[in-house]
């Protein structure tokens, strides 16, 4: 397994041919209290950059984009009743959806943990 990060503050854990996607701890701190999450249904086809999910804080709604191309295999059902899991555990229990990986090369340009840390440090 390896974890990749995007400039849009998503994390992608790759396990075989399935990617699990969520938002980073930095992203949840920026959003504040999450009160609603709309996750995609299994079977939904996504191209890299498509709108995949919506995370809403008290203040605003933020779109979550598909980091890669593939088919959704599951949305996180726990987020319906406990959206604040994204605040408490963004990079594990707060995962948003899982999807297949159509083109593994789409992962090549993404950051690893060290690069992402540097990226975030540059934003503050």
């Amino acid at each position, binding site marked *: 397994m390896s974890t990749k990060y995007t400039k849009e503050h998503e994390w992608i854990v790759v396990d075989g041919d399935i990617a699990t996607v969520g938002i980073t701890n930095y992203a949840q701190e920026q959003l504040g*209290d999450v009160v609603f999450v709309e996750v995609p249904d299994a079977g939904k086809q996504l191209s890299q950059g498509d709108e995949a999910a919506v995370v809403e804080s*008290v203040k605003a709604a933020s779109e979550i984009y598909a980091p890669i191309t593939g088919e959704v295999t599951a949305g996180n059902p726990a987020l319906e009743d406990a959206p604040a899991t994204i605040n408490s555990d963004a990079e594990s229990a707060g995962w948003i959806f899982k999807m297949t990986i159509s083109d593994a090369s789409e992962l090549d340009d993404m950051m690893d943990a060290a690069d992402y840390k540097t990226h975030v440090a540059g934003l503050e």
Partner: protein
Amino acid sequence: MSEKTENLKQTPLDALHRELGAKMVPFAGYHMPVQYTGILAEHTHTREQAGLFDVSHMGQAAIRGKHPATALENLVPGDLRSLDDGYTRYTMLTNDQGGILDDLMVTRRGDHLFIIVNAGCKDADFAHIAANLPPGNELEIMPDRALLALQGPKAAAVLSRYASAARHMMFMTSESLHIGDIPCIVSRSGYTGEDGYEISVPAEQAEQLARMLLDGEEVRPIGLGARDSLRLEAGLCLYGSDIDTTTTPIEAGLIWSISKRRRSEGGFPGAAIIQGQIENGPARKRVGIVPEGKAPARAHTEITDKDGNGIGEITSGGFGPTVGGPIAMGYVATDFAKAGTAVNLMVRGKANPAVVTKMPFAEHHYFKG
């Protein structure tokens, strides 16, 4: 937020906000605290204990002259001639189309009126008022004053420790009080639906006052984020979102702020249009809307009837922490304005069912003796 951070003004509490760990954002030309610990916690704390808000970005001014109430009545539909000394009234500056230039609080303080207007409108408001006051009256802008709001069920107990008379003030009254040794203008009013006070204080003593109030264990600093969710639950209008130059006080459901005399006499900008809407009913009305599901509907969400015909638009919407779910307000065609009417909200291409609902969403707790 797309405002540039350069050239932003600071309130007298700027350093205190940063010391308290606030997340600062640009708002109406100022650096303002949007939150300290988190909007949900701050919202709930205000409903259960007491919250201190810095609203020093708002505009404060006095109108002086022989007959300041009569003078300002030329610009607002509120009844100011009947405003007794020490009382505060909510009204709005209207334009010739009956639209709202701003909403404001007007307090009679002896021989003059004390007004508080919105930050984003204050320059335009003051220019408009100054240009339109009859001769013999003048507007005195008070840029050297800060404004704090202390809101919540414990507000009276906290403020009374420093100014015992505060406890006995009624909702929408105002007094000059010393809080500790700081001379303040205290009004029992606010923007949260809770009991509480708005306190005008000399800018150089604002931080001292804020620290004094924050000393109370019931009091926490509250940012603009929770201020917005609190006022939305209270059903109160946000200028620029729920009311603006294209909405009239009648469409906005603010007819209660226009007395019988002013309805019949007119004598304010747009009076003919507003009187016509009072007589014939407006074509649209501001209503409360509760989505049936969990998805919030934000400002500018289209409202449709059950057949998919557009009937209006959400003007404010989000999550109500005290309600525990999504709430919104917006304008609908009058036929759909009755509480209980089923409508749809078009959120990300889906028609989410919702119901027109009476406001407030969270009960008001004003102190009326």
